[in-house]
């Protein structure tokens, strides 16, 4: 069974929130990697986000990179079309799959 971890992105995804979110997710990914080895899927859940800054976009990119390097696949759940538009302006949809609803387990 594929390991899956979901992380809820902050409501106001500004510089401070981005730093906290990045540190929190990276710490868990590293811990997980040490315990179970590489593999699995990280779901970045943007359901609660109503504002995303450039720092939020930068943190999302950094998370993508670090997760991929640790052997994790990454997808983003973004129900709000306008938040999705911001991510697409930055080209994030070229790197990771963006879906509007959470994926079914192990789908």
């Amino acid at each position, binding site marked *: 069974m594929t390991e899956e971890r979901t992380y809820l992105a902050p409501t*106001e995804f500004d*510089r401070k929130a981005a730093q906290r979110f990045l540190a929190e997710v990276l710490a868990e990914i590293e811990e997980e990697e040490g315990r179970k080895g590489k593999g699995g899927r990280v779901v970045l859940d943007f359901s609660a986000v109503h504002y995303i800054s*450039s720092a939020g976009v*930068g943190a999302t*990119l950094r998370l993508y990179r670090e997760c991929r390097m640790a052997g994790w696949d990454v997808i983003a759940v973004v129900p709000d*079309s*306008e938040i999705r538009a911001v991510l*697409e302006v930055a080209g994030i949809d070229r*790197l990771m799959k963006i879906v509007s609803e959470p994926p079914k387990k192990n789908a």
Partner: protein
Amino acid sequence: MSVAVGFPVKGLVQPPREVAALRDPWDRLSGRLPGLSIELEDEFRFGHVVTAVGDEFRLGGSIKGGSSSVWITVGEEVDEGYRAWREVEGISTEPDAEAYYRLKHRLSALSIDMRSHPEEYLPRHGGAYQLLEMLLGLLPDEHLLWLPLEMIVVGGWGPDAAKASAYRDGRIFLYDFVLGGARRTFAGILLHEMGHAFYSGLRPERKRAFENSHSVIACSGALLGTEFLLDATSRVVYQEFLVDEFAAEMYMAFVAQGGRLREFIRGLEGPGADAWRRVYGQYLDAFDGWAYI
């Protein structure tokens, strides 16, 4: 005859200071303009705007229209900061029909059409036409004739969302998002999209060679970041995972910051250095032997 990282070149072109500035970190204006904090400066450079809605001001955007739900309410001082920032770094909205017609004339001679959206000539995009003329003026005719580029579309919005820009089916689209942002971002994005055209135009065997070189470069971590729209570290992530993004970004670097790129390559050792020299040679070929300072 000059030599660039081991390759003979026809000559070296000096980009205007505004374009060459892409080689350096983006100069901070915060502290020098009223109401402009570092955070706000980053947001405006990312394309966020301040809009008056009734009695209040809202920060957000990167998207079309004024009814976005992703905006946050801000004070009047943020609006002042936005106006001050835009005055310094934004693209002029003053008309410049002459720039438009000069550009149109040159492109037409190279079988490249230019259209604005929704009308043929849009007076409010005078600053964008000026920038386009300056940037395309850096590129030799031989190169523009070689590129698979049939049309440049100025203005409008992306098909599914408000993307910044795109290269698709021989056409470069510069959407309203880019036209309302910073001049530095416009310069970076235009050259980046030209880079997608470059990659698209590589013959299959040259594209394979380019991809192989990219694999080596990405594995060795020898990537060069440039700050526009996003910070330099963020922009490197795309290059690391997507070969066409690497090709597009390095096209921009080849033109706007040739000296920095060559210095970067000269500082490398091992397989990454060899791969970079092969990549640089491909750009040089595509530019008919011309390189940039």
